[in-house]
C-alpha cells in the first residue's frame, strides 16, 4: 500500500511538472548579464567607418541596443517595431550590426529605413559573444550607469514593447 501511495505521489508531481512545462519555452536561454555592467566595446560605425563608438559614450542615458543583421529574416519582421520605438523618442536606439557585410547591411537599411541613432559594426561577432548573443535579433535595455537591465531574445513585438520595454525605460528614466 505504501509503495502504491509513493508511486501515486510521484506520478501526481510529474503530471504537475509537465503541465507547468507546457507553458514554458525550453529553447529560450535567459541572459546571465542582467544586472551586470554592459560588456565594454569600441567599434567602428557602420555608416562612417572612421568614427568609433563605445558603450561608455551612452553613460548617463537610458538606451536600447538592438542586435540585427541583413541576413536575418526575423530582423526584418521586427524592424517596424524598432522604428516605432525610435520615432516615439522613448530612448535612443543603437544598432549592433552582427556578423554582416557593409555591402549587404547598407542597402538593407536603405530599403527598409534606418531608425537607429547610430549603428556599430561587429563584423566578426566578438562583441556579440561578449553580450551572449546567440540568435539575432536580440534587444537590450541599458540604464544610466551602463548596467544591462533587460534582454529580449527574438523579434520584438508590440506587446513586449508595451508590457516590458516601455515601463522599464520609463522607470529607469524617472530615477530607477
Amino acid at each position, binding site marked *: *500500500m505504501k*509503495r*502504491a*501511495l509513493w*508511486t*501515486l505521489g510521484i*506520478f*501526481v508531481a*510529474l*503530471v504537475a*511538472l*509537465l*503541465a*507547468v*512545462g*507546457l*507553458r*514554458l519555452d*525550453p*529553447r*529560450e*536561454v*535567459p541572459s546571465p548579464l542582467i544586472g551586470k555592467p554592459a560588456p565594454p566595446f569600441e567599434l567602428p560605425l557602420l555608416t562612417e567607418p572612421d568614427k568609433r563608438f563605445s558603450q561608455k559614450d551612452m553613460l548617463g542615458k537610458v538606451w536600447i541596443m538592438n542586435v540585427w543583421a541583413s541576413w536575418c529574416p526575423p530582423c526584418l519582421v521586427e524592424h517596424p517595431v524598432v522604428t516605432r520605438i525610435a520615432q516615439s523618442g522613448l530612448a535612443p536606439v543603437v544598432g549592433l550590426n552582427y556578423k554582416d557585410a557593409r555591402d549587404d547591411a547598407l542597402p538593407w537599411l536603405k530599403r527598409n529605413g534606418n531608425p537607429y541613432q547610430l549603428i556599430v559594426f561587429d563584423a566578426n561577432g566578438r562583441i556579440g559573444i561578449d553580450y551572449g548573443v546567440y540568435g539575432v535579433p536580440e534587444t537590450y535595455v541599458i540604464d544610466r550607469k551602463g548596467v544591462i537591465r533587460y534582454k529580449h531574445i527574438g523579434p520584438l513585438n508590440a506587446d513586449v514593447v508595451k508590457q516590458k520595454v516601455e515601463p522599464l525605460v520609463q522607470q529607469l528614466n524617472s530615477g530607477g
Partner: protein
Amino acid sequence: MIPELGQIALALALAVAIIQAVLPLAGAANGNRAWIAVARPAAQTQALLVAFAFGCLTYAFVNNDFSVAYVADHSNSALPLHYRVSGVWGGHEGSLLLWTLMLGVWMTAVSWFSGHLPEEMTARVLGVMGIVSLGFLAFMLFTSNPFDRQFPPAIDGRDLNPLLQDPGMVIHPPMLYMGYVGFSVAFAFAVAALLSGKLDAAWARWSRPWTTVAWMFLTLGIALGSGWAYYELGWGGWWFWDPVENASFMPWLIGTALIHSLAVTEKRGGFRSWTVLLAIIAFGLSLLGTFLVRSGVLTSVHAFAVDPKRGIFILGLFTVLIGGALALYAWRTSRIGLGGEFAPVSRESFLLANNVLLVAAAGAVFLGTLYPLLIDALGAGKISVGPPYFESVFVPLMAPALFLMGVGPLARWKHTTIPELAVLLRWALAVSLAVGLLLPLAFGQWHALTGFALALAVWIVATALISLKKRPRGSRAHLGMVTAHIGVAVFVVGVTLVKTYESDKDLKMKPGDTVSLAGYLFRLDQVTNVKGPNYVAARAKVLVTRNGEAITVMYPEKRLYVVQNMPMTEAAIDPGPTRDLYVSLGDPFDDGSWLVKVQHKPFIDWIWVGCLIMALGGLLAASDRRYRVVLPRRRGAEVTA
C-alpha cells in the same frame, strides 16, 4: 473522396472503441457473457477500420494528393515511391495513426491467441486496450486529424524532411511503435489482474511472452534509431542522451526489469504486486515518451511540430490511463498477495537486485531528462543535462548489473549458497580478469575502465557458457536468456572499444591531398556534382589504402534537397567486423578545397550486432514450447489456469 473515407473509418473505429472499452469490462464485472463476448469482435473490427484508414492515408501519399494538408506538408511529387509510403508516418498526425494501427495489430493478436485464458480475463485485457485506443483515436480526431483538407490544394508538397529520406527511417518507427504499443498488452494484463483480484503463475505465463516480444521490438527499434543516427546525421555519433532517445530508453530499462520480474512470478509465483506495478510503469513511460516528443516541453531533434493544445490532450490521456491504473493498484494490490519465500542468496534475490539496479538506472535517466524542466518550472534558471551527466551516472549503475548477469542464472531458485556459486564461477572470474588486464594492451593504450568493462563482457560470456554446460538440454527459453545475455556482452565490447580507441581527423583537403589515420591512408581523388531524384549533391571520391594495398573507395556527399533548401551531409561508411571507416564532407572553401572529417571507429558494429543478438534472444525465449501449448477451449465453461 478517399481521405474522407479514411476519416469516417477513424470515427467508426472510435465508436467501436467505446463499445470495446465499456461492454467487456462491465460484462466481466457482472458476469454478463454476451457483453464479455463483444471483446474479440470489437477488437478485430476496430483494427480493420484503423487499417483501412491507414490505407487511405497511404493512398493519398502515393497518389500525391496535395489537397490533404498532411500530405502537402510531408511529401512531394519528386519523392521516390518508398519514401512516399514511409512519409505516412513522417509527421505527428500520421505517426499517431501508425501508433493506433500497431495497437490494432496487438489487439488482434491478443484476440486470436487467448484461447486458453478465462473469458473474463480476455475481456478485461481487450477492454483496457480499448480504452487506450479510444484515447488515441479521440486525440487524432479532435486535435491531429491526418485527413484535414486544405483549399486550395497545394501545387506540390513541402517534401519529406531529408533526414527521414532513408531506409532506416522506413523501419525504425514501426519497430519502435510495436515495442511501445506492445507494452500496452502487459499494462492491460496488469490492470485486468487488479480488476479481477486474481494474479497467479498462469497470469505470468500468459503475459510473459507478449512482454518479451514487445521488449524485442523495442530493442530493435532503439538499435535501428541509433544506427540510423550514426550513418544519417553525418558526424559519427550513435547516442546523444537526447530527451527523445531517453524517452525510448526508459521503457526499455523498465521493460527489461519487467521480463526478469515476470520470470520470478511465472516460476515461483513471487513478486506479483511488483510485476504489476512495473507493467504499469513501463507503459506509462511509453506514453510519457509520446508526450515529450509532441508537446514541446523539451527540445529535441526528434520533436514533431509543437502545439500546446496537443500537449494538454496527451497529458490528459496520460493522467487518466496511468493515474487510473495507479489508483487501482493502490486500492487492489493487497488482494494479489505475496509470493513464495526465498533465501537471501537465491536466484530470486539476484533478480531482485537486477530490478533495483535497472529501476535505479531508469530513475537516473528520468531525473536527468526532466531536471532542466524542473529547474525552469521552479524559476531557478536554465541548465542543461547532457552526455557527461548520463555517462557518469549510468555506467556505475550498470556495472554491478552486468556482474550479476553472470551470477543470477547460475543460482538456484529459493536457496543457493555462495560456496556453490564460487565453485561454478572461479574459472570464469579468472579468464575475465586476465582478458581485462591484457586485451587493452593489444589495442594500444591501457585504461583501467576499458579493462574493467572488457572483463565484465568476458565474464558474461563465460558464465553464459557455463550456464549452457550446466543445462545442455535446456529449454528454448533458457537458450533465449543465454543468447540475450551474450548480446549484452557483445554490445558492451562494442561500446567500450569504440569509446576508448576511436580517432578522427578534421582538415581542409583539395583533390590529391591525403591524410592518414589509424594506419589507413585516405586520398581525396576528386569532387563531382551529381543529381538525385530530389536533390543535387557534391560527391567526393576518396581512395582508401593500407600499407599500399587498396582497401576501398568511399563517396561522401554534401547534398542539397531542393524543395526545402536543406543541406545534408551523407557520410560514407566502410563497415567491417573490427572497424568502421567514416568519411564526411564539411563545407567547401572558395578555392575548391573541402573540410573533410575522417574517422576510425573500432568495433562499432558490435554495438548494433549486440542489440540484434539481444532481440534474437528475446524471440527465442518468447517462442518456448511452454507458451505454445494451448489447452483446448471448452465453450461455455471456464478454463481454470
